[in-house]
Structure formats: structure tokens, C-alpha cells
């Protein structure tokens, strides 16, 4: 009897802890940085891309400390969607969290295939310059200097 009760307790505790742990996140921006400290302009430890899976270690304000293929660092909350592993998933609930929906929507709806077809139908639209302005980059070091010289606040 005692052994059976202990087994039940162990099972319940194990199931409960599953709902707390195993938190992962997916990158939802085209490209982003895993930074050494939880602030913008901190040195970049790794570059991540859309759809990359990250292990969440902890949260620090608007930032998450994450592990990406063995590299630990920080990423801003708006660059990821959390994907919690919860009991409701285990018991077969078919409802999805926002992150689940975001991940499920990945590559669906309005995507490169749709844009490509739209562009062929509208050749007068200036996508060439849109690409050019998207590819125009301001170096982080220069932006940081601009902020400091102007007596502004670093984010």
C-alpha cells in the first residue's frame, strides 16, 4: 500500500514539474542576436534566424536569458514566441496558445510565395527600392555613439 502511494506521489510530482519546466521559444524575426547581457548594444554571442528554437533559462525584465545550441545569452522578448509545454497539452486539449498559433502560422498566409505572385501581377510596384532600403544597415557602434554624443539614453 505504502509503495503504491509513493509511486502515485512520484508520478503526480513528475507531471506537475513537467508543466513548470521545459520552456522553449521560437525566434519570430528574420534575424536577431543573442547578446552577452540583457540590453541592446551588448556584444553579440550568436545570430539566430526565424524559426530557431531556444531554451529559456530565465527572464530579466523585457529580456529572456536563453540557450541556443550551447550558447547562453539574452534576447529581447519581442523577438521570440514562448512555447510552453503544459498539462493541457498532455491531456489532449486542442487549444493552442498565441505562441502555438504564431508558430503554426509560420510560412502560411501571406508569405514569399504570395508576394512573388503579387509582384508578377503588379510589375509597376517598386520592390527593388524596398529591398534596397531594407538592406541598408546602420552599424550598431555608430548608433551607440550617436546616442551618447546627443546626450540621449541608451536603451
Amino acid at each position, binding site marked *: *500500500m*505504502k509503495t503504491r*502511494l*509513493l509511486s*502515485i*506521489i512520484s508520478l*503526480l510530482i513528475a*507531471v*506537475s514539474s513537467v*508543466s*513548470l519546466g521545459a520552456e522553449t521559444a521560437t525566434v*519570430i*524575426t*528574420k534575424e536577431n542576436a543573442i547578446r552577452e547581457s540583457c540590453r*541592446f548594444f551588448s556584444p553579440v554571442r550568436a545570430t539566430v534566424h*526565424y524559426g530557431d528554437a531556444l531554451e529559456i533559462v530565465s527572464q530579466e525584465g523585457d529580456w529572456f536569458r536563453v540557450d541556443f545550441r550551447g550558447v547562453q545569452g539574452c534576447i529581447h522578448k*519581442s523577438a521570440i514566441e514562448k512555447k*510552453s509545454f*503544459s*498539462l*493541457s497539452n498532455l491531456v489532449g486539449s486542442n*487549444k493552442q*496558445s*498565441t*505562441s502555438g*498559433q*504564431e508558430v503554426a*502560422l*509560420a*510560412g*502560411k*498566409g*501571406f*508569405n*514569399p*510565395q*504570395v*508576394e512573388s*505572385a*503579387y509582384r508578377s*501581377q*503588379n510589375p*509597376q*510596384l*517598386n*520592390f527593388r*527600392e*524596398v529591398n534596397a*532600403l*531594407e538592406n*541598408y544597415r*546602420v552599424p550598431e557602434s555608430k*548608433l551607440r555613439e*550617436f546616442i551618447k*554624443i*546627443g*546626450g*540621449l*539614453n541608451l*536603451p
Partner: protein
Amino acid sequence: MNRTLFLGLILVSFALGCSQVNMGSIGQMAQETFSAARPLSDEEEYYVGRAVAARILSTYPLLENRRLTEYVNFVGKTVALHSDRPVTYGGYHFAILNSNEINAFSCPGGTIFITKGMIHAVRNEDELAAVLTHEVAHINHRDGVSAIQKARLTQVATLIGSQAAQRYTPAQLSQLVGVFEGSVDDVFKTIVVNGYGRSQEYHADESALSFLWRAGYNPSALKDFLERLLSQGQSSGGGIMKTHPATADRIERIKREMPSVNVDAFAFQIRARRFQEALR
């Protein structure tokens, strides 16, 4: 005694387990409510924004001035980093339209256009930051995609609902392109022709004051700029005034929401000087 203790432990474990499920469900309900108000993913918003930008660039030519473009990007990216949504799918990009019209447009996802006329209408870097921050606020609030008719989004949901593959059949693609085109039209008409609703504009002003303050710019710059437009009689007619609510109303609301700040006069002068240098 031991059995009672074990049973107690079981009950506590169950209670803990159940409370986690309940908390999860509450969180999930809140997330779903939020999701209903945000029907497009960040990635889809980006593609709509690109097409809107392409349409704007088919109407207005870009100003080819590398130094001024870099400067506008410095100011814009600074305030964007201090906004509530500092990171978007494709990032923030700022470009200057070669037009004397006094105007600025924010495309969904993060591309912001400001006209040459607007850059000449502002007097210093803080006023330029105020105009750009107002546009960043529209992107933060996803005001662009909110202009898309709900029926179109329902149609997208229906079309992709059971679609597991990420490539569409020609028939599905044709339908999706039609919905995409309609969505781009909705956004373009709103931001370029009709303007956002009054409440969206007031909300953007309100957020702009907060983002400017966080960045270290003087939030009063937004009020100063609008007051000057009003006094110069530019508060009616074309450009930004055609698509924005009455300037006097905006100024009154901005005054009420204005955070109290101590302006560093020395830093303000440094910024004003570099603004003049960028214009040369």
C-alpha cells in the same frame, strides 16, 4: 498516521498540479483574447508592409541623400529602441521621400517614410524625433494592419486553415494573392489617402510622448512642431494635415499628457547643431 500523511501529500500534489493547469488555462484565455485582436502574424504583417512600401515608392521617389538618410535612421532607430516594440520581424527602416509635401507614413512591420518637406518643416532633431516617434507608435499599435477588412482575414484563415504544406496550389495561391492585394489596398488607402481614426492618432501622440521621454528627447518638441504648423496656417490642406485630426485638438491632448522633464540645454544644442549639419 502514515497513511493520513501520504493521503495528505497526494491531495497537496493534486492541488498544486490542478492550480498549474488552471493558471495555464487563464493565461491561455488571455493570450487567445490578445490573438483575436491580432489576426496576422508578425511575418505576414511584414509582407503586407513591404507591398505597401512598394506602392508608396511607386508614387513618391526616394531622396538620394546618403548622409541625411543615415541621420534620419539614427534618430528613428534611437526612438524605436525605446518604444514598446523595439524589435519587429524585419526591423525598423527609415527613408526620405523626395516630395515637398509635409508628410510621413508608417508601413506595417517597420518601414517609415518621411518627406523632404517634413524634414524642412521641423526645426531641430527633437522635432524630427517627435514626428518619427509618432510613426513608430503606429507600428507599435499595429494600426496599419488594423485597417484590413475583417472579411479578408477570415478568408485567409479559411484558406490556410487545413493547409499543412507551406506551398500553395495554383488555385489557393490565386485566391490568397487576391486577398493580399485587397489587404494592401486597405492599408495604403488608410495611411496615404484617408488617414487613421482619431483615436489611433491620439493614441500614437500619447505613446510618442512616452517614447521620446524614455529616449531622452524633449517630448515638448511634438507640441512645438504642431503649434508652429497651426500658427503658420499649414494645419489644413494637403499632406499630413489631410490625414490627421484637427491640429488644435491634438495639441490640447498632448498638453494634458505631457510628462514633466528637465531638458538638458547643452545636449539639446548639440542635437540641434547636428540636425543643421545633416541638412547641409
